[in-house]
């Protein structure tokens, strides 16, 4: 690929004052070796703190609903509770941290891969997970995993709090587990298996349906997962810890895709615990998994219908490194560098938004100071607009509707209504932090084009025609919504 196109394809383009790297492939590859620190200057809440806040919220809200029957008093108390627990604040705060990192950080390529994996392990929009948990989990658990093994990433992501919550595994119990044997003895109805997480572990996170597994394989994967869920909860209060309870595990040997998983261990508490680790190790080293993930990475970075020769570069690196992510990532970059042109990718709304902010030097998502919150007042416009704009564009990254996450192809992202929203956003440039009273917008557009395009002549030609027409925001639309910026 040409240098600047490559930088836009695998990163977010160049900032107005950023040096053009002399060796873009090395520049990109080096970014994958170390997990960049978050540059957000404000407070970073730990995942545990956020779980505490979540449980405080859910418990208090529950109590409020049960105790306060006067509607107007209930409304006022609810508002206070929402503000005290940041019910409307935290998702926006997390989005601001994410975008600040992508727009101003020095490892934008790493951030692109982070966004990719966050979407690969998408947490659906339910149970207030996007409000309190999904962002913190991605930042605290997913990021550090990106320099390790893929299998470790899958294992740890499988056992994150939001994943267990959203895919219901905490409600899954082996039909012949000690728990259910006991219930039957007491003549209580069985509380059995929940297949949801077992199926998605196979379908979405590792091998995909291409592997040809059957319903029996799905049930056995779900058996293997029984026992993993929340531990140490009290009645009426959400538990904060993920752990293993042997009493819920389905005993015996379970077979998935011909491989047998025996019950190891002696203690009744931990018996069967290792099955999940063994299953994930086997899934992750299978050809089906390697092919699927390599294909998905190519589809994200190279083109909507990746060709075998592109995918092969990643498969080879995967096998050689035994699934080490830095090697896999570097192979993705090499394949993109080699095959990225003449292929094109239509950028997702969030990537496009970050890209135009970074390339124009826009004040996006705004000065971190504006996100300082007192947990008492109503959120102001500047605090709210990041989620409002991403919602308008149809891409709130923590709010996937289904566990397969957001799509990745032009057919899915190019529609009348999606395009209307991108054009209408740039038509109001102050929303993305481009102010008319700073540099004339046409100068910003020109600077951005010169900096970020290997051959800027076509776009500069369009701008030249607009120069005399006193059409400041037109110049931004003409460039930021041009084919060459929408599609890299």
């Amino acid at each position: 690929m040409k240098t600047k196109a490559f930088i836009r394809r695998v990163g977010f383009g160049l900032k107005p004052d950023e040096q053009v790297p002399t060796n873009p492939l090395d520049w990109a590859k080096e970014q994958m070796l170390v997990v960049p620190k978050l540059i957000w200057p404000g407070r970073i809440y730990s995942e545990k703190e956020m779980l505490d806040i979540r449980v405080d919220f859910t418990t208090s809200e529950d109590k409020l609903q049960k105790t306060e029957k006067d509607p107007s008093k209930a409304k006022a108390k609810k508002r206070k509770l929402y503000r005290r627990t940041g019910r409307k604040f935290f998702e926006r705060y997390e989005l601001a941290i994410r975008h600040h990192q992508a727009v101003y950080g020095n490892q934008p390529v790493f951030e692109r891969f982070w966004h990719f994996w966050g979407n690969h392990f998408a947490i659906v929009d339910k149970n207030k997970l996007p409000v309190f948990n999904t962002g913190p989990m991605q930042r605290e658990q997913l990021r550090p995993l990106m320099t390790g093994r893929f299998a470790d990433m899958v294992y740890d992501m499988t056992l994150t709090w939001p994943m267990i919550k959203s895919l219901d595994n905490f409600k899954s119990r082996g039909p012949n587990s000690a728990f259910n044997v006991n219930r039957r003895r007491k003549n209580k109805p069985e509380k059995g298996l929940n297949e949801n997480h077992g199926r998605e572990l196979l379908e979405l996170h590792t091998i995909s349906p291409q592997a040809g597994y059957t319903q029996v394989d799905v049930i056995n994967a779900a058996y293997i997962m029984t026992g993993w869920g929340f531990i140490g909860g009290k009645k009426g209060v959400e538990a904060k810890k993920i752990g293993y309870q042997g009493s819920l595990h389905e005993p015996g040997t379970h077979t998935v895709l011909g491989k047998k998983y025996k019950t190891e261990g002696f203690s009744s508490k931990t018996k069967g615990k290792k099955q999940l680790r063994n299953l994930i190790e086997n899934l992750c080293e299978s050809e089906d998994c390697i092919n699927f993930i390599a294909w998905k990475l190519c589809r994200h970075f190279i083109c909507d219908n990746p060709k075998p020769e592109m995918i092969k570069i990643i498969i080879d690196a995967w096998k050689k490194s035994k699934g080490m992510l830095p090697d896999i990532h570097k192979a993705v970059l090499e394949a993109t560098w080699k095959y990225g042109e003449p292929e094109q990718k239509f950028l997702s709304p969030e990537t496009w938004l970050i890209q135009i902010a970074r390339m124009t030097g826009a004040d996006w998502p705004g000065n971190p100071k504006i996100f300082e919150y007192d947990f008492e007042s109503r959120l102001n416009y500047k605090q709210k607009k990041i989620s409002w704009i991403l919602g308008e564009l149809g891409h709130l990254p923590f709010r996937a509707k289904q566990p397969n996450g957001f799509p990745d192809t032009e057919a899915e992202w190019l529609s009348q209504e999606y395009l209307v929203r991108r054009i209408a956003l740039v038509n109001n440039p102050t929303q993305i932090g481009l102010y008319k009273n700073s540099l004339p917008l046409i100068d910003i557009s020109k600077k951005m084009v010169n900096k970020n395009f290997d051959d800027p002549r076509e776009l500069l030609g369009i701008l030249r025609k607009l120069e005399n027409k006193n059409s400041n925001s037109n110049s931004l639309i003409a460039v930021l919504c041009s084919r060459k910026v929408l599609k890299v």
Partner: protein
Amino acid sequence: MNISRRIFLSGSASLIVSAPIISRAFGSTSTKKNLVVIMLRGGMDGLTAVPFIGNNILKKARPDIGVDKPIKITSDFALHPQLKKFKKLWDKNKASIFHATSIPYTGRSHFEGQYLMESGGTVPYYDKTGWLGRALETANKKSLSISLPMPLILRGGKDLDNFMPSANRLPSDETLKILAADYHDDEALSNVLRTIRKRPIAMMQTSKNSSQDVKRLAKIAGQQLVQPNGPSIAVFDIAGFDTHADQGGDNGEHAKKLKQFDEIIGTLEDELGSAFEDTIIVSLTEFGRTVDQNGGSGTEHGYGSAILMAGGLLPKSKIIGDWPGLEKKNLFEGRDLDSSIDARAVYASILARVLDRDHKEIVKNAFFNANLPDMTQRIFG
């Protein structure tokens, strides 16, 4: 609702010129027939929407999530209590149910299933167009999807648009012309922008109200469908039927979603007025759910479900299909309601009726000449 114009009138002169002008003098307005497809993602449970009450099997299989107050409509079947508007239409002979049906897919994956319910094919992720789009390719009718993406089901068709209310305003058409010139050698972008520039003024309005309440969306669709020159096809997309946990019974998660479906139907009936007589609304889902409840008071991915139909094009209310029964031996793989008819046969017959086309032609164009029996008599007879 706080409405302002999304476009400056001064900039819209070329919009008016480029809009298709169909004179009322042609007199084609009275026969415009409408089809509304409501996609229910996640696996709509046909046994919750239209429970079988002919014996106790379902009740026993679902002790915690049964429908306690079903609305009895025949000796064997009832409606979920949230399907109130649907029940009213049933009483007026304007609603029918095709039960125990599914697209020909038994893999129980949402994403494969959803792809196939829209593509109309049998190989997931293979066909790049949708059955509705292909059927419309030569039909000379406009379609409108009430969604942000252009759903696969409509791809391949001509004159497609999609819409959701939004607050930001488009620039003048002069500005859009700059983009049109820039997009000229990109077919996909050009087509999309061309439709945007031709949009009726009503769809150019902005709204500060960001609510995506289904009633509001259905109202917008109804207002467009009722226009003589407006779209004849509308598509809705509701997600959230995948209730592996806490599915609920009369109330709860699945009930909430059925209520949304019901509200779309009710709102469309109100908005369409007399045009409702020339309309048919159908549901579409990727699969049904297991007969037994699972460990989390939910249900798992299954097979057979139901197609709910409403509208004046139906001659009378009835339950259609060949009921396979809920006894263990009659279940698909011992766990799911079986499908006794390929759901695509139902959609093909509805398409033939709405588009005034021969059934065989529809099956050829939209469903790859699959072996689909003609259901016209059973639905419309």
